[in-house]
């Protein structure tokens, strides 16, 4: 199986702070890979480094074999990477439809994939003309993911989708993400270990800005000691 994304010992700074001190990871095509670690381990910064919002100062980021480090975020995204940030960052003043339309890279993107998107998230179709700011938290999360599905993306970077959602919504969301993974590769950052462990096939563990361990999720689930030590959860 080939890797769609390869991150090779990147170093990222925010101001004077050395946030990522050598993160490496590979995302195999057609699967879900989870990025795990404590708060402040550098998971969000890793995603931002990949998409170019926090460009790494050293190291390599390769998407489908081509170096993308140092390119501008719009340029990276246009290669086929969708980004769903942790705060969702939907455009509150725009309608649901406009939130989807704005993500189009070709004129008929939404028309082409609309059926698939609304099949996954029927609520969005009901509220299509509503300002996105009036949606509930769960619906906003779905809109943020749906927005990343509008153009033809071969890799999705999803940051903390379960944050602040009620358990019942998390179940729904997991179902949606699982369905999605049939179409596209996903790199998932998730604090909720139970959710991550049920979705992902592979994991990478970050601590203090370094990737320290990786492998198949099946193995990690039984490794109580590691979970306890680096994730602080049972």
């Amino acid at each position, binding site marked *: 199986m080939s890797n769609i994304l390869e991150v090779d010992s990147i170093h990222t700074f925010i101001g004077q702070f050395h946030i990522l001190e050598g993160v490496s990871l590979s995302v195999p095509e057609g699967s879900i890979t989870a990025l795990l670690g404590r708060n402040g381990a550098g998971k969000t910064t890793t995603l931002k480094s990949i998409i170019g*919002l926090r460009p790494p100062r050293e190291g390599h980021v390769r998407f489908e074999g081509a170096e993308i480090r140092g390119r501008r975020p719009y340029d990276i995204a246009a290669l086929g990477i969708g980004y769903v940030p942790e705060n969702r960052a939907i*455009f509150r003043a725009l309608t649901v439809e406009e939130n989807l339309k704005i993500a189009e890279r070709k004129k008929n993107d939404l028309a082409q994939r609309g059926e698939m998107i609304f099949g996954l998230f029927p609520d969005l179709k009901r509220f299509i003309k509503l300002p996105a700011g009036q949606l509930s938290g769960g619906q906003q999360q779905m809109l943020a993911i749906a927005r990343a599905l509008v153009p033809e993306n071969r890799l999705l970077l999803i940051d903390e989708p379960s944050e602040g959602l009620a358990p019942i919504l998390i179940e729904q969301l997991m179902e949606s993400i699982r369905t999605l993974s049939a179409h596209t590769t996903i790199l998932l950052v998730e604090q909720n270990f139970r959710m991550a462990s049920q979705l992902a096939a592979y994991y990478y563990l970050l601590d203090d800005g370094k990737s320290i361990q990786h492998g198949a999720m099946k193995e990690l689930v039984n490794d109580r000691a590691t979970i306890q030590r680096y994730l602080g959860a049972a």
Partner: protein
Amino acid sequence: MNIVNRYRNPIFTLLLLLIVAALMFNGMSASTATSIVLSGVTLAALYFLVASGVSLIFGLMDVLNFAHGSLFMFGAYAGWTFYTNPRLIFNSAPLLLLFAAGLLLNPLTARFVALPRWMRWLAGLAALALALVAARGFPIDRLVAMGMTMTGKVIPTELAQEPIETMLLRCGWALLAGIVLSAAVAARSVEHIQESARRTLGMVIGLTILGLAILLARNVAEQFILQTENNWRFLMAIAVGAGTGGILGALMEWSLIRPLYSRPIYQILLTLGLTFVFDQVVRFIWGPAGAFMEIPSWFSTQGKECPSPDLFAWFSQHCDSIAFFGRPFPSYRLFIILAGVVMLVGIGLLLQRTRLGMIIRAGVQDSEMVEALGINVRRIFTLVFAIGAGLAGLGGVVAAPFLGVYPGMAPEFLLQAFIVIVIGGLGSIPGAAVGALLVGLARAYGDHIVLAGIQLPGMSEAISGSPAIARASTVLIMAIVLFIKPTGIFGKKE
């Protein structure tokens, strides 16, 4: 009850305004009141054209552009020059275009030349020296001197303009200066390097050809423009003013403001500094005195039937004024109002109905996320800056026949525009429109009481005001609005 509660603030504001208006217009004839209102709306249209750009730019980029009044002024001068004596434009545009062509080589020079820091400074100085060589002895005063339109005296073309060979030489120096400068700023353009060489070369060659074409066609083009019927020439002048403002705005954003997006204080110092530069440039080129601009004949015909009895009669008569309740009102001011309304509707359509507008509205909230969707936000920033600056330039030309052109128009309109957007709410276009109306009406009313005084109920004699009060009234409105709602009428909570 629910509805009353929801709209409590607007209803309260409206009632307050009605009471104030009733007091203001107490004892006034319908014709006087109408003329005050129309004068106020005229001013409001001009304030809106400046304020809307400031607001648009602030909304998307958080840049408070102090140079906006200067763009308004520069647009006015450019339009006026084009209308009366376009010679200066045809002789200076080629030089600027070739300089720009050289500078745009940047992505290519950056690929081949990587100068150390001290060499970059040296190259910058060299570029300055080359630019000075290109401009040395350039006969600005002769080019600006009035040609045939104002005094009827024609300055022979050979005398005012330099021969083609001299101009070509100047163009060469300007191109060289641009290229050297492009090497000096090469380090800034790392991100551009990936842009294709073909596109860069295409742009550079295009600009060069455009510059040379303008130079070679300068006499023909000048004759063509001066022989164009004055109304159409005026409409062309408006386009020239808007274009000048837009190009200046885009250049400003690209070269000076872009490096400072993370430093708001520097932006303020920079744009404030630019106002002084623009002021001196205008004084240097056109002199400190200012000038009048004739009103195009659609709005200045005088005759026996004038003033036109109503708007419909005016369409066939083109009178300089139209009667409202028996009092003539200058028809050109109605054109200013029309321009303001058209631009308000235009901005509204742009924001609500186009993809660019959608991107702008999204970018106001979170420009990083817009970029992460695959949209080149920097290009959008430059474009929006150009649109805002273009609106100011357009406003300048529209204002010129009404107010004339003079260096003081920059600070005057900048101040009013800032008052307008503070009243209306920073970043809000409806706010800019409402703010402009309030300020415009206050100014017009203030001007009226300076002349005629004010009659309050229960008083036998009118109280007269001083010009200072008329000017202070707008600041007073601002103070009241800030006191009640610190974010402005349409402002959102921080």
